[in-house]
């Protein structure tokens, strides 16, 4: 008999497409959270596949901290235009101006935690009932138990003890008024899978993922890019290094890695031999071992 076999990447793709279609059918107003990073770029491709040749049946929403790399924003705008998709941008700066949140102080101030408020406000403003996120379970320990359909109460909070069991491919998106779901179609993907998928689908990604020369400051072992958001401390100075970024978070907390990887293939090699997780370069997770869990409980991505 002929052997019918799908490679692991094709199986992961089929699973993600299935989930996106379930969400589009089970919910009234889904939205895809888009950061311009590689995971959300994959998500957009999967959404295209799920509904082709129709357009995406939901908008994209970007929570803009105002501290993004300019390359990411340029990439975002180009992609959205090519796609003909609808993009909603919510600014953390607006939340600050409205007094909804207070900016952190000090040299390591970050807007990472603040974006939770802007996100929840955005969800409420547009009455979204499901928000796709690109998070993966391999990223962090607290995510290992995350569901594909992650239930959030009316305060947007995640309760690890109150998540619904997920059996087979049956996803229960039923909810009460005011509650919403976060949905993570890439749950079963690893960083390596994402890179391989980008390569096999020949997708574009922002330039900052590739090796380039840039002025950076070494702050406690984390290489931060020169930007108007960073105030040098005594003894600190910028120096030019050959680096790339493994994630596209805020300029204030996303650490660069020294690297010569300037093609997708060389990035994949680098990922394969990496000894530090991609979040290892993020100062926000380092603050405490349970940092991610705490942020998730409050409604983080």
């Amino acid at each position, binding site marked *: 008999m002929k052997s019918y076999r799908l490679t*692991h990447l094709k199986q992961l793709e089929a699973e993600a497409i299935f989930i996106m279609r379930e969400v589009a059918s089970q919910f009234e107003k889904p939205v895809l959270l888009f950061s311009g990073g590689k995971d959300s770029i994959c998500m957009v491709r999967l959404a295209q596949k799920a509904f082709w040749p129709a357009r995406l049946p939901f908008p994209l929403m970007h929570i803009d901290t105002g501290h993004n790399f300019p390359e990411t924003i340029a990439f975002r705008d180009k992609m959205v235009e090519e796609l003909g998709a609808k993009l909603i941008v919510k600014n953390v700066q607006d939340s600050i101006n409205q007094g909804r949140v207070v900016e952190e102080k000090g040299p390591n101030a970050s807007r990472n935690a603040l974006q939770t408020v802007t996100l929840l406000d955005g969800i409420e403003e547009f009455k979204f009932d499901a928000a796709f996120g690109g998070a993966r379970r391999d990223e962090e320990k607290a995510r290992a138990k995350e569901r594909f359909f992650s239930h959030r109460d009316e305060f947007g909070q995640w309760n690890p*003890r109150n998540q619904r069991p997920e059996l087979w491919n049956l996803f229960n998106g039923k909810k009460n008024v005011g509650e919403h779901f976060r949905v993570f179609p890439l749950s079963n993907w690893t960083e390596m899978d994402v890179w391989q998928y980008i390569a096999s689908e020949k997708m574009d990604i922002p330039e900052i993922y590739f090796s380039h020369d840039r002025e950076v400051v070494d702050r406690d072992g984390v290489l931060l890019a020169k930007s108007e958001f960073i105030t040098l401390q005594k003894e600190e100075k910028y120096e030019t290094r050959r680096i790339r970024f493994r994630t596209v978070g805020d300029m204030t907390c996303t650490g660069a890695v020294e690297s010569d990887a300037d093609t997708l293939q060389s990035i994949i090699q680098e990922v394969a031999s990496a000894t530090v*997780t991609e979040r290892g370069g993020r100062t926000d997770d380092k603050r405490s071992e349970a940092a991610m869990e705490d942020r998730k409980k409050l409604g983080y991505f």
Partner: protein
Amino acid sequence: MNQELEKEVNEQYLNMDLLRFTTAGSVDDGKSTLIGRLLYDSKAIFEDQMDAVQQASLGSGDENINLALLTDGLRDEREQGITIDVAYRYFATPKRKFIIADTPGHIQYTRNMVTGASTANLAIVLVDARHGVVEQTCRHAFIASLLRIQHLVLCINKMDLVNYSEQQFEKIKDDFEDFSSKLDIPDIRYIPISALKGDNVVHKSENMDWYEGASLLYTLENVQIASDYNFIDSRFPVQRVIRPQSDKYHDFRGYAGRVAGGVFKPGDEIIVQPSGLTSKIQSIETLNGPLDEAFPPMAVSLTLEDDIDITRGDTICKPDNQPTVGQDIELMLCWLNEKKIQVGGKYAIKHTTKDARCVVKEIKYKVNINTLHRIEDDKEIGLNDIGRVLIRTTSPLIYDGYKKNKTTGSMILIDEYTNETVGAGMII
């Protein structure tokens, strides 16, 4: 790395298979240590994670690095020292990518085991070589069998504590064979290991010359899982109708879904249930172009030659091989909620892509999941219980027995007031 080699590595990666497995064992049998070792030895653990574990080990006064901490996820659990929910882990070797559904061994968590087992190709059940087969071993094996996992590996762990004794291994193997003859698992293997010391986990052990089988990792890499899908009985539950309504695709009408069984090709005659309407497949569409065939678990869109009325929840199949269409359905039901099942109670259900409601007509019997005996005099089904139940649905379901097809043979029950998923049903 030179370019040739680089290319080879990438091609290998793109050709990798996927194996999903569950791990179960009683508390302290060494499950976390085993998973930690698999992840560690396959380099799925990175330095920063290892640093965090080292810190935590020091904090809790362990002298050795505690590999188990690599897998104990949430803070609540770390404080209580038990795993309370299914956690998923990932690692890969050049041959396969692995998804581990790590289910806690704690006595009342049948619910988690069922959840983890529902998507698994293989189950690892751990026993402590000193204690042998215990009640929970039987329960875990029974659940694997009930969920129709085709491959079970019984890992006899802590062999280092019984002097790597062949007699002890053989005795446990015999005991388990006795019990498992009552089950329906076609492929059962036995591997003596030490998760702590690494014997027979990744590499074959030098301490057990008498053992002629393969290491655990080798087994996981090579077990044949092709037959886990049904490629005979064609089933395509429609998830969504795609109508672009754009100029270019003005007349396009695609039925999006995931193949649940069999193989579909352009030109195939099809019948849609429950309407009974017939047509032929015109094309199998994807963003990357049309395909010659679609098989499980591919996600595609079918277009048909005739414009017939099809909606989400319908199933496309072949006229000469049809699923059952019916409303009175018998299930093996695993209960997942504190609130007991109510005879006469109404629940929402999800079955393939269809939403419906049902009423529980009768509880036929409850299963003693340690002995597999039927309990006919106590028909109360509560959290973690498994029983045979008759339901009637508000509209016809298009289904197969779970034995024939896991996708068209499974359903979940949902409490209509709390919206919680309360039952997992396998159609008989």
